[in-house]
């Protein structure tokens, strides 16, 4: 049997860049976590393994969606074997770093087992047909489980190891099943091709809108009004075309997390952005940003570049507003809307400021040489890191610089407007000079 099936998918500059970026960061995180709280080593190790699992899972998904994947003899088995070897090596390495980093290290086998489970689950998710539903659930549940989870695992090591290995086995069994590979081969790389169809009824000259358009034209309508209507139709179609399961699951889970976390978690965002609701805010921002990116399906519609620009910008703006509205509504439901005037409000404002950056890091609008999920993942991580630093600075540093609440609100409002202006300029430049073809995202 051929060896190096998975390795051949990884041997490329992207992997070297990714590994060079992730491994040192992982080591630093482990040393920081280990020196402060040994139990945190388990959580950080699992997180690092999950990130590496995601990277490798992405590469496997790329191959599984190729037309040759289904008929290639022993392909699934070969991929599975090397994925497991990879997972064992990664989790062992991370557990070893954790053992060295920690002052009172948790049992190495425990760290390795949870790491392997995280690696397997996240990697396997990429191959599963239900990933758009399972991925947000998995991440939000993990984030919402709170900082006490690793300590609880530490108290029952044998149960934890057994459960972790069972979870890993279940994930591997489902991901490398013939069902999952059949689905990948049948859907192919353009699984959202059907969205093209969903977009047609939104065209201004499609039967129903056409009648309205001509009726308006005969009454000497304003061009601006027509454009406004067609742009709104385009934005509406974009929201309508996104998989409803992904939308509703993410939205419902986000609201649940905010409500369940309660006022204490909300107020902790400012003090410790890396714990509690902070990562959830980032995750939801990233998710909603990535959902609105791909232009692949729209490029086939007979829209002008100006129309594309307007639809994309309004949709981007809509994402920010939607995020803010949902967060405010969820905070209100949590019974502590007043807390929004403090650190939490500033934190949410920072998310709004960074939203365009998340949207750009979520991937290019059309297919181009750097249109690679690995590259966008690296960009995502980079933006998230800068975001966390800024969040910390704004939440704790801003009140020291500007004491008045109103002045703070004005400053943050100006920053939001500024970031939107920058987004508009970038989109304008993009649609003025970029080929609007391709798009395999």
């Amino acid at each position, binding site marked *: 049997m051929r060896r190096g099936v998975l390795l051949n998918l990884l041997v490329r500059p992207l992997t070297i860049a990714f590994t060079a970026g992730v491994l040192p960061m992982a080591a630093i995180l482990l040393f920081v976590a280990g020196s402060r709280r040994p139990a945190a080593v388990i959580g950080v190790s699992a997180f690092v393994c999950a990130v590496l699992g995601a990277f490798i899972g992405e590469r496997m998904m790329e191959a599984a969606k190729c037309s040759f994947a289904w008929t290639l*003899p022993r392909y699934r088995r070969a991929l599975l074997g090397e994925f497991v070897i990879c997972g064992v090596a990664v989790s062992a390495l991370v557990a070893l770093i954790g053992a060295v980093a920690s002052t009172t290290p948790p049992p190495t086998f425990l760290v390795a087992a949870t790491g392997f489970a995280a690696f397997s689950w996240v990697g396997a998710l990429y191959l599963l047909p239900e990933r758009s539903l399972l991925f947000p659930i998995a991440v939000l549940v993990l984030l919402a489980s709170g900082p006490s989870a690793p300590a609880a695992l530490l108290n029952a090591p044998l149960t934890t190891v057994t459960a972790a290995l069972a979870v890993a086995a279940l994930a591997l069994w489902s991901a490398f099943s013939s069902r999952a590979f*059949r689905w990948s081969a049948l859907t192919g790389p353009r699984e959202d091709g059907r969205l093209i169809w969903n977009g047609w009824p939104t065209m201004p000259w499609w039967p129903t809108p056409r009648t309205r358009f001509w009726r308006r034209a005969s009454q000497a309508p304003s061009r601006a009004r027509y454009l406004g209507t067609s742009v709104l139709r385009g934005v509406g179609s974009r929201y309508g075309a996104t998989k409803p399961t992904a939308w509703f699951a993410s939205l419902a889970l986000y609201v649940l997390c905010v409500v369940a976390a309660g006022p204490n978690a909300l107020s902790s965002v400012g003090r410790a952005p890396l714990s509690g609701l902070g990562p959830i805010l980032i995750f939801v921002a990233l998710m909603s940003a990535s959902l609105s990116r791909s232009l692949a399906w729209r490029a086939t519609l007979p829209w002008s570049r100006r129309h594309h620009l307007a639809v994309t910008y309004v949709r981007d703006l809509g994402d920010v507003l939607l995020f803010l509205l949902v967060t405010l509504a969820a905070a209100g439901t949590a019974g502590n809307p007043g807390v929004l005037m403090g650190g939490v409000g500033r934190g949410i404002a920072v998310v709004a400021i960074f939203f365009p950056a998340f949207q750009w890091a979520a991937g290019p609008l059309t297919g181009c040489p750097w249109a690679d999920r690995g590259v966008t993942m690296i960009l995502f991580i980079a933006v998230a890191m800068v975001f966390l630093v800024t969040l910390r600075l704004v939440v704790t540093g801003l009140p020291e610089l500007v004491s008045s609440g109103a002045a703070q609100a004005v400053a943050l409002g100006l920053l939001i407007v500024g970031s939107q202006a920058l987004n508009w300029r970038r989109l304008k430049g993009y649609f003025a000079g970029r080929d609007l073809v391709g798009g395999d995202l």
Partner: protein
Amino acid sequence: MGDVMFEASGLTKEFGELTALRDVSLSLSGPSIIGLIGRNASGKTTLLRHIVGLQLPTRGQARTLGVATRSLQHEQLARIGVVPDAPTFIRWMSVGRQLQYLSGFYQRWDSVRQSHLLDLLDLDVHADISGLSTGSAQKLAIVAALCHHPDLILLDEPVSNLDPIARDQFLKLLLDVVQEDRATIVISSHVLHDIESTVDWIVCLNNGTVAADAALDDLKDKYAEWRVLARTRDLPDRFADAFVVRQTVMEPRRARLVVRTADADVLAFQHAHDADVEVAPLNLQGLFPILVDNGRH
């Protein structure tokens, strides 16, 4: 024909309310080149996907190389080569690296044939897959499907994106492959003129059912085209003769008919209508509407 490569019995595939294949029973044997024809959405691709086990029957049985398609193992898969209608590969690899990646999975991978096919189809081994045109990607899929000397080759619209030169070369290549490997080739295509010179058996699907399953020569023998020219009086608006299957051109003094040869009597027809009749063989393009219209043959 020899070995049975694929057998279906009462094969039905439903997608919700849509029935893509309806009670299909057929047997594909080789070595031969089988033309799988039919109108759009007649179930050709679905049938090909059933042969490799990519889709499973809602009802009925399907067996490929003697094994139920649900349980195809690597031994069977190694004997199958597939060119899908929209082939996709790992985008960042080069053509050469992609073929090298695939070659490791087949014991019978033939590097000499690979080089020959790459030359024949004018495919650059160093070209990046992301930059390949649709036609070149199809050529790569053809190379990948033929290099391991498969016994069963499934080609879903393989010539649709090829230029005329590549198309000719490819069709000649199929004949070589059948001779050399004694393979069975199932080729689905709408370009009937092109495949006519290559195929020896026709399976025609219509609305998910088998409308025809016969040797091409037998089908051609069963029908003929009559070019009718009236001598003295106008021809009738429609010919009522039972052997007339189709009336394609109808003018007052001229007509073009497709007739069932077993029942047709040229002399009697000429006498009855006071017309000259020129008898011509029917090509696949001419046969197609009859096969589709007549239902099961």
